[in-house]
């Protein structure tokens, strides 16, 4: 796997959130999904910057929706995970499983 195809920690979270939400994933709900799962409250700017990076890597695609009144007349940018994104998630999971294999964390100390 080339260097640019690896997922950073936050990229991993964002990609999983988009996949979990499925159709209709956009910045605000992706941010809320991450907040609900991790307890962290990421900045919306960080979510959008990460989504742009994932789009450049070919892991997600995006398109602009219609403006709505509840968003102050501003349009949504919708996101969808592409096949390369799913492959990157599978690879990341395999890597973690390989590293965890045979490892006991019960008595591990820093």
């Amino acid at each position, binding site marked *: 796997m080339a260097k640019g195809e690896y997922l950073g920690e936050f990229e991993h979270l964002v990609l999983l959130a988009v996949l979990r939400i499925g159709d209709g994933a*956009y*910045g*605000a709900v992706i*941010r*809320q999904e991450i907040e609900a799962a991790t307890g962290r409250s990421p*900045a*919306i*700017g*960080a979510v*959008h*910057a*990460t989504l*742009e*990076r994932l789009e450049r890597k070919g892991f997600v695609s995006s398109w*602009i929706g219609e*403006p*709505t009144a*509840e*968003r*102050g007349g*501003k*349009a*949504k*940018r919708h996101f969808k995970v592409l096949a390369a994104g799913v492959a990157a998630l599978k690879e990341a999971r395999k890597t973690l499983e390989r590293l965890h294999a045979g490892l006991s964390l019960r008595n591990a100390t820093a």
Partner: protein
Amino acid sequence: MTPPVIAQALLAAAAPAGDYDSVAGDLHEEYLHRVPIQGVGAANRWYWAQALASIPPLLSYSRTQRSIWNGLAVGAMVVVSPVVLLLATEAINDTIRVTCGGGHCAAWTYFSADWTDAAVFGALLAFCIRAGGVRLVLVSAVLLVTAIVIPTLLGFSSRLPLTEWLLLFGAVPAMCAGASTYQIIHRRSEN
């Protein structure tokens, strides 16, 4: 119910032109959900925190393609433009002094020249960040400070008079205004 206007303006100055609507719309939507649950004060504080925390990541990316030549051009612009602006301001100030017949001119004439200078610099900075990325601009700015500003400052006395402080504090909002104006014009030209 409207989110804090200044926080919105900061967000507008930082967000890439093509992404401002989606970023600000996402925040607006969450803000409206929070107001009836948490109250206006808490929702405003949440909006401010989100807007401020969003500025660095939003400045760090652009949807436009970047090349080495583009990077070199932007780097050169960051280093050269403040020097050119400084020289231009000095020339304008000299002209004002000559126009006043060598006597004391009203302070606002000098302030307006310097604040205009700062507004132009703010617009240039916004352009450079958008075109070349925040890292490149930071590296170029560090180069500029190390090579030009520090040696220049060492030649000055450590205590600045009141008028100099006024100039400095006026320059910051003027720079922000310049940066915001650039973003608004850029956004309109893209739509």
